[in-house]
């Protein structure tokens, strides 16, 4: 690629070509012949990808700019002279990191891990019972839980703050993850039950005849077969909790136990003009969710139950 200096579009293009190819390839594999998207669809995809990428690009570019440059001009001005390396710097990252992000990372994990693992555990048990066990009011109870989905967590902030104050939980990690567990549970139960009800009933009946207790059926059969649903909920919950600012700010606040989102928000607050720091901090904080997503997304494979029953 030859860049003459005054051609605006080339930078984003390499980033877009990749997803387009991946999509086309997958379609071809799934249904040969039917996978030829016409040029209109392709154009729409290019435009959508471009629009989607612009803000991200802005963050990435800003994170590498010097404070002077960031404070005096918009990030898009780099496009006119992308090879002028004097406007770039790596110091934003080290500076953002030194603002306490290392400690905040540990805090974030202390909140996010229990807030992800515990609801999955409880919800999987509940979903199993809702799907495979019979007890009075089963369906009404399930409807009630699903109805809880519409309750926004903001309504509980004040009462929670009072309760936490009474039991001395304010300022503890548990204050945050308990709130997340509670509000993540309805969706977790809903997703897992819906998934489990698609599992072949005969498998559970077969286990029953084989002599498996509910507990064994759950651990040895249903959990392994529900991995796709467990993984997708884990990703969602992890991202929500990791990216949450409101609850963490209220119950933990800035200070010794502040989480990453609070630190990142503080980067611009304390420096007033620190957008290059904020963006660098944001990129650092993004690393973990991206890793989580990449490591779990392979469980999204469809047809994990393939071969169990006739397919």
């Amino acid at each position, binding site marked *: 690629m030859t860049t003459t200096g005054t051609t605006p579009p080339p930078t984003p293009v390499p980033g877009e070509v990749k997803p387009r190819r991946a999509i086309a390839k997958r379609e071809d594999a799934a249904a040969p012949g039917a996978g030829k998207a016409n040029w209109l669809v392709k154009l729409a995809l290019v435009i959508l990808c471009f629009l989607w990428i612009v803000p991200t690009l802005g963050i990435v570019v800003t994170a590498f700019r010097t404070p002077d440059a960031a404070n005096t001009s918009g990030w898009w001005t780099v496009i006119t002279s992308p090879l002028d390396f004097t406007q770039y710097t790596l110091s934003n990252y080290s500076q953002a990191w030194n603002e306490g992000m290392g400690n905040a990372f540990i805090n974030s994990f202390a909140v996010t891990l229990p807030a992800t693992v515990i609801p999955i555990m409880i919800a999987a048990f509940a979903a199993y019972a809702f799907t495979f066990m019979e007890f009075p009011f089963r369906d009404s109870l399930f409807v009630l839980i699903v109805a809880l989905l519409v309750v926004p967590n903001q309504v509980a902030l004040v009462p929670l703050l009072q309760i936490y104050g009474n039991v001395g939980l304010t300022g503890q990690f548990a204050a945050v993850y308990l709130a997340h567990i509670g509000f993540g549970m309805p969706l977790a139960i809903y997703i897992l039950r819906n998934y489990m009800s698609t599992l*072949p009933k*005969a*498998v559970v*009946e*077969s*286990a*029953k*005849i*084989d*002599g*498996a207790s509910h507990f*064994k059926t759950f651990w*040895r*059969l249903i959990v*392994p*077969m529900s991995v796709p649903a467990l993984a997708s909920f884990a990703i969602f919950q992890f991202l929500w909790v990791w990216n949450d600012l409101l609850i963490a700010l209220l119950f933990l606040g800035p200070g010794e136990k502040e989480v990453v989102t609070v630190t990142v928000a503080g980067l611009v607050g304390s420096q007033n003009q620190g957008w290059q720091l904020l963006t660098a901090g944001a990129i650092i904080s993004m690393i973990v969710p991206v890793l989580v997503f990449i490591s779990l997304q392979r469980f999204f494979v469809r*047809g*994990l*139950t*393939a*071969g*169990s*029953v*006739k397919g």
Partner: protein
Amino acid sequence: MGRIVLEHVSKEFPGGVQAVRDVSLEIGDGEFMVLVGPSGCGKTTILRMIAGLDEVTDGEVTIGDRVVTDEKPKDRDIAMVFQNYALYPHMNVEQNIGFGMRLRRTPKPVVKQRVSGAAQALALLDYLARKPADLSGGQRQRVAIGRAMVREPKAFLMDEPLSNLDAKLRVQMRAELARLHKQLGTTIVYVTHDQVEAMTLGTRVAVVRDGVLQQVDTPQVLFHNPVNLFVAGFIGSPTMNLVEAAVTGDKLEFGSHRLPVPPGTALEAYNGRTVILGIRPSDFEDADVWRDERLPVIEVTADVVEDLGTEAHVLFSVDAPPVQVEGVDEDPEAGAPIPLVAAEGTSVFTAAVDARTAARIGSTVRLSVNPARFHFFDRDSGRVIRSRPQPAASS
């Protein structure tokens, strides 16, 4: 002892659906009992009640010498093979087969030995490390059977195990099952809607309709002496020709055909009335190929001739109202009759004759038929009109 006894068993599902009504059935040790009937007739429910997956509403279930009516499936010492195999997708073949034994804490060497024994019997030795997803339909079915085998249960319960296989494989697995039963000698209760499977596999066959047992007997007796119209129409392929026939003295009249009432038939009470006459397609023969002077002959016009190589099916219409047996023609897989639209008030008959027949579409065919093999049914009750004992009648 793998004896299974059902005594006055009924099942009513919540919502009031009566799936099984007062079924009493004794299945002997080592017997291959086939429950057959159209879909929704309750045969699977009967099986699930034996397994303990469905509770009985009324009645008693005995397996071996124990009444198990209120016992859990795992305490009944039975193994079940499901229609859709129900394999555990995340376990390989070896783990699938051994799962039940591992749950019961069978010592590892025993598990290993039994698994490889079953794998050998089912030709699965090369696939032990594979997951179900990497197996063909027939192999999956064999894994499901292997999983049942290693438990060495009192009885195998099989719920339409072959219905998900393609036609060729089904025939193969059918023979395999028959061989396996002979080899193991374990009681098998087998549910199917396919009367060919029922006829070929069963030591005895129980025909079920609307939750009620119709007839329980050997396939031969079901074929030759069906107790009612339903069994007559359900068993046999192509299905029995059924038509309304008038009895006048010693003559039977249906359409334009007149045939003698066979000797020894208890039709005196029906003189001047209408009965339902049933003739098996195989009881017709082309009189120009095989001529037996003692047998009466009818002349018909062939509407369709299907030459199967081994035999030929001649379809012809008879000018008499057809007899519909509810539930018999419902399943397209159950060897349903060829959908030939007959004109109003006429019935379509099938005759299975020697393949050397000269019959062609539109040609006149002379068919001989043996009145001694006729079946008569009461028009109102659908029950068979018993003939007096006739040793030659069902050879």
